[in-house]
């Protein structure tokens, strides 16, 4: 397991991406899966950076795990901000026309569609969100 703790700021998304990309590359991850994970990082870390701590800032810990036998990689985001389970969000209607569409709601949806599994836990005052992807 490898982990990185940093401030929940939008400008730190690229640091998280670089950290995870390095670990994925070290484990011979296919480019497509790596890109999908990068998009998921943008969505999930971006969400925490924009909403978890309101006007204040707090920390986020990003954890990477890899199971060699199943080639399953996981990235976990831990924050102590406001309780938020993204898996409880209603799915957007992706059949609506442009005029009927509203901004937002697509990020989590996209993550759920491209990852193999997404899990959320609220524990000891922390949001713990894990994405799993076979690489």
């Amino acid at each position, binding site marked *: 397991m490898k982990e990185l703790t940093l401030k929940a700021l939008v400008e730190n998304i690229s640091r998280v991406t670089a950290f995870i990309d390095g670990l994925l590359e070290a484990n011979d991850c296919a480019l497509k899966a790596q890109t999908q994970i990068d998009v998921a990082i943008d969505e999930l870390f971006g969400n925490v950076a924009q909403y978890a701590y309101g006007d204040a800032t707090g920390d986020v810990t990003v954890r990477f795990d890899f199971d060699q036998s199943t080639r399953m990689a996981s990235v976990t985001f831990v924050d102590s901000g406001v309780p938020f389970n993204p898996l409880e969000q209603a799915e957007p209607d992706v059949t609506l026309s442009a005029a009927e569409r509203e*901004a*937002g709601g*697509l990020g989590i949806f*996209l993550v759920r569609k491209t990852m193999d599994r997404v899990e959320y836990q609220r524990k000891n005052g922390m949001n713990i969100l894990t994405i799993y992807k076979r690489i």
Partner: protein
Amino acid sequence: MKIIKDQNGTQLTIALEGRLDTTTAPELEKELGGLNGVTALTLDFSRLEYISSAGLRVLLSAHKRMSRQGGMKVTNVNEIVNEVFEVTGFSDILTIE
């Protein structure tokens, strides 16, 4: 992300290079604020690596605006970006060539 603009009369082509995500989407949004008089907008994605929902939001508002004053098309979409368009239904909204 790099934004390369090429204007020819009322036709504007914007080529994006890199990643269109939470960090860079505001830059594109700013560029697209000045679409006065543009009737044909082409977004060239040949060097775009990926797009996240923040980028989709900007594309949707540009699409809505251009529908009123002409049209917008997206060209040279790679597999990863295309998958995002398919999953989110944007492939039915946008003109993709």
